[in-house]
C-alpha cells in the first residue's frame, strides 16, 4: 500500500522532442493518496494510458520521477513495483485453469504452495469465482475473465495499487454496473489505491472518490465528482462533464455585466472585478453555466435575457431545451413538471451559478 | 548497436540460409569450366554469358513465361473457389461440413507420385494435355485445400456481428461479400496468394508430366540440361537464380500482412 507521487513528469514518444506538441504528457505534478479510488478521465489521445503505463513501469518517462511512498521507482521494471494492472480486454493464460491463473503471480515470486492456496481461495471468494476455480479460463464469459485479471492483482499481498485501463469496454452493459459495484466492494475490503482509466464520465463519477480530468497531455482538474460539476476549473472540464455539457459563451465585459452580442448578463461584483482585470490583461473571456442552472421565464418578466425556444427534447425525467439568444445557442435542462414558455422567453443566469473563464481557466 | 544473444542466433541462421544461395549466385557468374575445374569463393572470370544465354534462347525464357502463366492461373482459381467455401466453413454448420473439410485436406496429403499416371491418362483423354490450364487445375489438388484452410482461419477472426449488421442494413449476400467482407480479409487473401504461388511455382512432378512443349515449365526445362551431354552448370545456376525472383516480388507485396501477424483460428 502506498501513496504515489508523480514529480514533474513529462513524456514524449520521440527521442528528441522539439516543441510542446511532441509531448504526449506535458507536465504532471501530483499526488495520489494511499487507499484512494481515483478515476483518470479524458478523451482518447489525451495521454491517460501513457500516464498509467508510467505509473505501472511499462514506460520510463522522458523526465521527472515516480515515487511510491518515499521510494523512487521511476526506473524500476513493473515486476519490481508493487502494482497490478487490468487491461481493456481480458488478458489470461488460456491454457491454465482459473486457479492456476490466480496462483501464477505468487508462484513466480516463490510464495509457498500453502500460502498461495489460502490467498487464492480468499480472492476467489471475494470475486465469486470459487465455483469455476478448476475450469479452464479460456472458456469463461468476458466479465468472469476480467474478474480473473483483477484477481491476479489482488492475490499479491504486497500490492500497492491496482490500475485499470478501461476495463469494462468488452463487458455487456447490464453486467457493467455489477462489476463496478464489485470493484467498490473490493476497494472497501482490501483498502487498495485504485486508479481507473476511462473516457466514460458516468463510469468515472460512479466509481471514484476523486476524478482526475486530463486534456491534451495535462491534468486540468482533480476533484470530487461534485466539484467537477459545480466548479470546473477549465472550460474543457465544463464541456466534458455533464450531459449536455456546460454552456460556454464568448463574452466581453461592460461594467458589472458580461456582454454576448446584445445580451447583458449580470455578474456578482467580485467576479466582475476579476473579469475586468483579466480582460485588461488581454485574456479571452468565456461565460459558463450548467444547463440545469439556466432558468427559462415567460417573455413578460423584466429580468434575464431575451431568448427564443428552438427545440424541446424529452429525456424522461427532464427536458433539454435549446434556446437561441441573438446568434448564440445555449441549452437548458428543465425538470419534469415545470412549464416551458412556448416561443419567446427570458433566459435567466443566476449569478451564483455563473462562471467566467479567462483563456480557458476558471476565475476564482 | 548492441548485439545480443538473439541477434547472434538470427545471424547464424541467416548465414546458414544464405550460404547455399550464395553458392548458386556465385556459380551463375562462372563458366562451366571454372565451376568444375577449381574451387573458387568468388568468380575468377566474372561472366554474364549464362544470363545472356537464358534471355536469348526461347526454349529457356519461354519456360519462365509458361510457369508464370499456370502459377497465376492456379492462384486465381484457387482463391476464387476457396473464398466462398472458406466463408461457408467459418460461418455455417451444414450437412457434412466436417467431412467435407477433412476430405479437402486429404487431397493435400495425396502424394503427387500416386497421381502421375492417372493424371497423364486423364488429361490426355479430355484433351487438355500440354496446356497451362491442365497444370493449373492439377495444382489445385494441393493448393485449394490449403487456401480454404488458411482463409477459414482468417475469416473466423472476423466477428459475425459484421455480417448480421450488413444483412439488417439490407445488403444482398454478393454485395456484402464483395464490398464489405473481402476488404476485411485482404490480409488473408494476400497470405493465401503467396502460399498458392509458392507451392505451384516449385512443384515439378505434375507440371513436367502434364506438359511436353507448349506449357513446359522452367523447372522442367532445367532437368533437360541435366540429361543433355555434359551438364551446363553455369546455365543451370543462372536459371536457378532467376527462379527466385517472381516469388520474392510476391512476398514483398504481402510482407506487411505477415509482419502484422495472424493467429489462424479461434485462439
Amino acid at each position, binding site marked *: 500500500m502506498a501513496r504515489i507521487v508523480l514529480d514533474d513528469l513529462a513524456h514524449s514518444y520521440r527521442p528528441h522532442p522539439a516543441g510542446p506538441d511532441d509531448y504526449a504528457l506535458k507536465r504532471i505534478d501530483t499526488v495520489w493518496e494511499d487507499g484512494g479510488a481515483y478515476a483518470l478521465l479524458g478523451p482518447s489521445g489525451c495521454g491517460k494510458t501513457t500516464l498509467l503505463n508510467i505509473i505501472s513501469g511499462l514506460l520510463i518517462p522522458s523526465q521527472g520521477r515516480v515515487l511510491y511512498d518515499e521510494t523512487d521507482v521511476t526506473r524500476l521494471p513493473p*515486476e519490481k513495483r508493487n502494482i497490478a*494492472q487490468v487491461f481493456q480486454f481480458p488478458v489470461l493464460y*488460456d491454457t491454465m485453469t482459473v486457479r492456476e491463473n490466480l496462483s501464477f503471480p505468487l508462484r*513466480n*515470486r516463490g510464495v509457498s504452495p500453502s500460502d498461495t492456496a489460502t490467498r487464492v481461495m480468499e480472492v476467489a471468494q471475494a470475486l465469486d469465482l470459487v465455483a469455476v476455480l478448476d*475450469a*479452464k479460463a479460456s*472458456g469463461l464469459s468476458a466479465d468472469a475473465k476480467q474478474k480473473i485479471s483483477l484477481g*491476479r*492483482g489482488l492475490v499479491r499481498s504486497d500490492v500497492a495499487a491496482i490500475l485499470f485501463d478501461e476495463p469494462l469496454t468488452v463487458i455487456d452493459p447490464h453486467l457493467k454496473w455489477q462489476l463496478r459495484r464489485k470493484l467498490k466492494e473490493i476497494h472497501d475490503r482490501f483498502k487498495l489505491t485504485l486508479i481507473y482509466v476511462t473516457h466514460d464520465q458516468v463510469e468515472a463519477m460512479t466509481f471514484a472518490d476523486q476524478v482526475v480530468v486530463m486534456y491534451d497531455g495535462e491534468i486540468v482538474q482533480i476533484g470530487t465528482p461534485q466539484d467537477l460539476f459545480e466548479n470546473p476549473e477549465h472550460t474543457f472540464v465544463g464541456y466534458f462533464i455533464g450531459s449536455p455539457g456546460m454552456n460556454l459563451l464568448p463574452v466581453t465585459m461592460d461594467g458589472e455585466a458580461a456582454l454576448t452580442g446584445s445580451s447583458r448578463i449580470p455578474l456578482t461584483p467580485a467576479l466582475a472585478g476579476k473579469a475586468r482585470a483579466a480582460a485588461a490583461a488581454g485574456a479571452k473571456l468565456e461565460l459558463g453555466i450548467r444547463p440545469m442552472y439556466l432558468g427559462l421565464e415567460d417573455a413578460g418578466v423584466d429580468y434575464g435575457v431575451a431568448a427564443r425556444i428552438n427545440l424541446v427534447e424529452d429525456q424522461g425525467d427532464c427536458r433539454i431545451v435549446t434556446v437561441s439568444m441573438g446568434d448564440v445557442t445555449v441549452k437548458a435542462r428543465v425538470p419534469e413538471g415545470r412549464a416551458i414558455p412556448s416561443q419567446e422567453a427570458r433566459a435567466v443566469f443566476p449569478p451564483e451559478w455563473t462562471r467566467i473563464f479567462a483563456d480557458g481557466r476558471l476565475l476564482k | 548497436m548492441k548485439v545480443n544473444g*538473439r541477434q547472434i542466433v538470427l545471424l547464424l541462421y*541467416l548465414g546458414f*540460409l*544464405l550460404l*547455399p*544461395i550464395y553458392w*548458386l549466385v556465385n*556459380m551463375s557468374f562462372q563458366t562451366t569450366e571454372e*565451376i568444375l575445374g577449381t*574451387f573458387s*569463393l568468388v568468380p575468377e572470370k566474372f561472366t554474364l554469358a549464362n544470363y545472356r544465354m537464358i534471355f536469348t534462347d526461347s526454349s529457356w525464357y519461354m519456360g519462365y513465361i509458361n510457369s508464370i502463366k499456370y502459377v497465376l492461373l492456379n492462384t486465381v482459381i484457387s482463391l*476464387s473457389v476457396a473464398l466462398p467455401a472458406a*466463408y*461457408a*466453413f467459418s460461418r*455455417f454448420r*451444414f450437412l457434412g*461440413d466436417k467431412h*467435407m473439410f*477433412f476430405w479437402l485436406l*486429404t487431397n493435400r*496429403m*495425396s*502424394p503427387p*507420385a*500416386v497421381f502421375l*499416371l*492417372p*493424371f497423364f491418362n486423364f488429361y490426355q483423354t479430355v484433351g487438355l494435355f500440354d496446356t497451362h490450364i491442365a497444370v493449373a487445375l492439377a495444382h489445385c489438388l494441393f493448393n485449394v485445400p490449403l487456401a*480454404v484452410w488458411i482463409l477459414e*482461419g482468417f475469416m*473466423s477472426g472476423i466477428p*459475425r456481428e459484421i455480417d448480421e449488421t450488413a444483412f439488417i442494413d439490407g445488403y444482398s449476400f454478393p454485395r456484402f461479400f464483395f464490398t464489405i467482407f473481402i476488404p476485411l480479409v485482404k490480409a488473408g487473401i494476400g497470405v493465401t496468394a503467396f502460399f498458392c504461388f509458392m507451392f505451384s*511455382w*516449385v512443384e*515439378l512432378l505434375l507440371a513436367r508430366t502434364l506438359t511436353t512443349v507448349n506449357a513446359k515449365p522452367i*523447372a522442367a526445362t*532445367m532437368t533437360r540440361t541435366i540429361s543433355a551431354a555434359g551438364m551446363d552448370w553455369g546455365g*543451370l545456376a543462372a536459371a*536457378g537464380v532467376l527462379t527466385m525472383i517472381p*516469388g520474392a516480388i510476391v*512476398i514483398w507485396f504481402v*510482407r506487411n500482412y*505477415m509482419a*502484422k*501477424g*495472424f*493467429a*489462424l*483460428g479461434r485462439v
Partner: protein
Amino acid sequence: MEKWDDNKAWFLVLPVFLVVAFSAIIPLMTVVNYSVQDIMAPGQGIFVGPEWYREVLHDPRLHEAFLRQLIYSFTVLAIEIPLGIAVALTLPSKGWKVSACLVLLALPLLIPWNVVGTIWVVFSRPDIGLAGVTINELLGIPYNYTADPMDSWLTVVIMDIWHWTPLVVLLCYAGLQAIPEAYYQAAKIDGASRWAVFRFIQLPKMRGVLMIAVLLRFMDSFMIYTEPFVLTGGGPGNSTTFLSQFLTKMAIGQFDLGPAAAFSLIYFLVILLLSYIFYTVITNLGKGVAK
C-alpha cells in the same frame, strides 16, 4: 461462437468441390481400378482382387522404405519445428529489418524443388562445393555424400531443414506478431520469467499456425521425392530411398502398375491416418474443458 445452421452453405462449397473433384476423384478411381487388376497391355486387365495389396504389404523392401520414411519425417519435424519457433522468436518486430528478413527467409521456399536438389549437389561436392570442401579440408572430417550412406542421409536431412524451416519461421512469426502487447505487459507485472512467457503466452497463441506448420511439414516430408532424387537418386544403396521414390521406381521403372497402384492407396491411407492423429492431438492440446 455458435455457427448458423444452413444447408444452403453447400452452394458456397460447391465450386471447391467441383474443382478438387475434377483433379482428385477421377484419377483416384483410376488408381483404385489399377490396384485390383493385372494389366498386360493398355485396356486389357484381369481382375485379381486384393492380390497386389497382399504382395505389396509383404514386400520387405517396402517395409524398409517405410521405416526409413518414418525416421526421416520425424527427424526433420523434430528439428524444423523447434528451430523454426526459435528463429521466429529472434526476428525483429518492426522496421525495415522485418521486410529484409521475411524476403530472405522466403527465398529457399521459392526455388523449384529440383533446383534445390541441384544446389545441394554442387554445394556439398567434396571437390568444388563450399560445404564439401569446408568439411573435408578445414574440419578434416572425411565427407562424401555420394559414397557414404550416413553422409548421404545427413545431407538430405540438412537440405530439408535448409529448405523448409523458413516455412515454419514465417508461420510462427505471423502467429507471434498477432499477440497483443497487453499479454506481455501483464506477464511482466505478474513477474513471469522469459520461459513462462513462452510457455504460457506465446506457445498457446501459436497453436493455430503451428498446427498448419506441423501438418504441412509432416505431409510434405512424407511425400518427399524430387529433392533426394536429384541429390542422391535414392542411394548410395537404398539409404535415401523414401516411399515416393520406391513407388515411382515400381510404377515407371518396372512398370508394375497393379502393385504400384495398390501401394499408392496404402501410402495415401497411412498419410491420412498419421495426419489425422496429428490433427487430433494438436486440436486437443491445451484446449479448455469448457469450449
